[in-house]
């Protein structure tokens, strides 16, 4: 009961201070809107090893040869073999694969028919880079074609899912939510404790009965609400200006975002306990922000990155959050489909908050 009163005292104080800080207010509203308008365009790169699955219903020598050649391009990493196109779609929706190759039962006959594509590629068109790669792959000359005198347009028909118009914004904006929240949330709390230290407030605070946990949780709580406001802003502007859909459940999106926000706030608090000045805290935040942009799958397709970069990327909350937002917003995936990503964020938040509380010293030496 007493703990709760003390906790609310800290929360109330934070809100009052926030309300009066114009720069903070600018960060809450200005940063998301500015960024969303800025990031209109993506950067395309070569992509390799896209996780993919094959549903080969032809079971013929020719079709197996075709699959082998697809694998040899190294563009696709054929991880799963399934039976039906429905299963491919399921894997696609769950974010397990970005490309599904469907080989129909009449593949051998289609292969010699100039007018009909022999196979179909189901592509997560949410990411235009991947879609571009799939399109190029579809133009690949296929072995059995060499003897043919007839020029055929395409061996494979490409069917983009989720983003039929191939608009970059559709892919960028779900990712941008993560980038903006990483930037603002981490920074807010990264400077929180240091600022109180610099202004001398901390010396008074640590001489009161307020516990470290009360102080930390009280500092984090108001920003959860602010993070959700930012989310609403970005999604709203995204829908309004860039026609970015939210195909999944809005509730799922907010739940996922809450976990992500807490993870970043806790990380910020940890930064705050290790830095001595606000400037140091900001530098550390930027140091964290760059990989969150470059290695999280926001800018470059995650699967296309070198293995080491992927391992690093897995350590960043933003990587997991981007999978969640793209899944929920573009592919109508549910939290159940993406439970693992949510779990990672939760674990991350608990570890970071615990580390911050343990690291926080109630002494000055």
């Amino acid at each position: 009961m007493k703990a709760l009163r003390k906790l609310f005292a800290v929360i109330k104080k934070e809100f009052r201070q926030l309300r009066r800080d114009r720069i903070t207010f600018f960060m809450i509203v200005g940063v998301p809107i500015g960024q969303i308008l800025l990031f209109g365009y993506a950067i395309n790169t070569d992509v390799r090893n896209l996780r993919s699955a094959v549903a080969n219903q032809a079971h013929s020598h020719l079709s197996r040869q075709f699959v082998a050649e697809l694998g040899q391009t190294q563009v696709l990493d054929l991880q799963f073999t399934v039976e039906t196109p429905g299963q491919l779609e399921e894997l696609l929706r769950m974010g397990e694969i970005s490309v599904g190759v469907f080989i129909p039962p009449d593949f051998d006959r289609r292969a010699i028919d100039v007018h009909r594509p022999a196979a179909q590629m189901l592509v997560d068109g949410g990411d235009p880079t991947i879609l571009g790669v799939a399109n190029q792959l579809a133009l690949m000359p296929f072995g059995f074609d060499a003897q043919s005198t007839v020029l055929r347009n395409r061996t494979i028909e490409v069917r983009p899912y989720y983003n039929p118009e191939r608009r970059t914004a559709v892919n960028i904006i779900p990712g941008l939510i993560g980038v903006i929240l990483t930037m603002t949330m981490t920074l807010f709390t990264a400077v929180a404790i240091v600022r109180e230290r610099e202004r001398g407030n901390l010396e008074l605070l640590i001489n009161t009965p307020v516990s470290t946990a009360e102080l930390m949780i009280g500092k984090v709580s108001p920003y959860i609400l602010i993070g959700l406001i930012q989310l609403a802003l970005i999604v709203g502007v995204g829908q309004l200006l860039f026609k970015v859909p939210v195909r999944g459940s809005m509730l799922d999106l907010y739940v996922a975002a809450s976990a992500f926000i807490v993870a970043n706030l806790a990380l910020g608090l940890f930064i705050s306990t290790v830095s001595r000045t606000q400037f140091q805290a900001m530098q550390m935040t930027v140091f964290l922000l760059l990989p969150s942009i470059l290695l999280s799958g926001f800018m470059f397709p995650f699967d296309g990155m070198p293995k080491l970069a992927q391992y690093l990327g897995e350590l960043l909350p933003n990587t997991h959050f981007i999978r969640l937002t793209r899944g929920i917003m573009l592919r109508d995936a549910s939290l159940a489909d993406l439970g693992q990503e949510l779990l990672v964020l939760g674990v991350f938040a608990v570890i970071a908050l615990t580390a911050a509380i343990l690291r926080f010293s109630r002494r000055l030496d």
Partner: protein
Amino acid sequence: MATNPGLAIEARGLSKQFGNLVAVDHIDLDVPKSRIYGFLGPNGSGKSTTIRLLCGLLTPSSGGATVLGLQVPGEAAALKPRIGYMTQRFSLYGDLTVYENLEFIADIYALTRAQRNRRIDELLEKYDLVAQRRQFAGTMSGGQRQRLALACAVLHKPELLLLDEPTSAVDPKSRRDFWAKLFELAHDGTTILVSTHYMDEAERCHRLAILDRGRKVADGSPAELQAATGMNIVEVLADDPVVAQSALGELTEVASITQLGLRLRVLIPESFADPIALIEAKLGQHRITARTATVPASLEDVFVAVTQKRQAA
């Protein structure tokens, strides 16, 4: 450490070292309850560090202290609700109003809503902040801020109040009012430890310790200290005090000379008999006319005497 129930603070050999700097060097303290105890010393004498050690904010390098019967820093958590601390720097929130600051502190100490409202009204009245109730703390004058800081420090009615140079940024009128409040608090049973570098403030304390470069060089009541300087103080009224000062400076017996307007205050250790004769002989040698008289020691003389003694040693 044996704890004397009449003492609020008992420190033995309390030391704090920062790298090569010995900020507090084996200090022993006995601070009686319900009294105002002063720390007198220049900047860098270890006043703030000692106060922080006593709050449990710093870990001593050696030695230890018992505050209100609790060991610091080990039992600091239990001590926090029972002490009030006013930092040297204004440490409340400049972007919160007077009322909001008080409210925050009250909630931090987990007062009930009714207790809180009653106590805040009482404090606003008592510390003359009713008109500033809605003013941002950051826009207030030094005196107002200091009253707010004191109000926040005593809000939870602590048994012990630690004040680190509370009056360094306020005008003389505010200082007088502030001290009146401290006496009221002491009268009501609060023990007050206050650091200062003002002699007139030190004189108001029931007891005080003089600190010099981390060491306690004297302690006692102001009267005791003034009686035990070990110096004769001779006041010299000369037409040209500057010339007189340079002449008297030749005397190896003189511990210190301070000019106050036309007067010089000359400190000579008691081991030298007849200081007046000594001074008049010297002035006569230089054909300087002056009137001389021995006077009782002021606290400033005490301060000069004890710090000089240590330099000599």
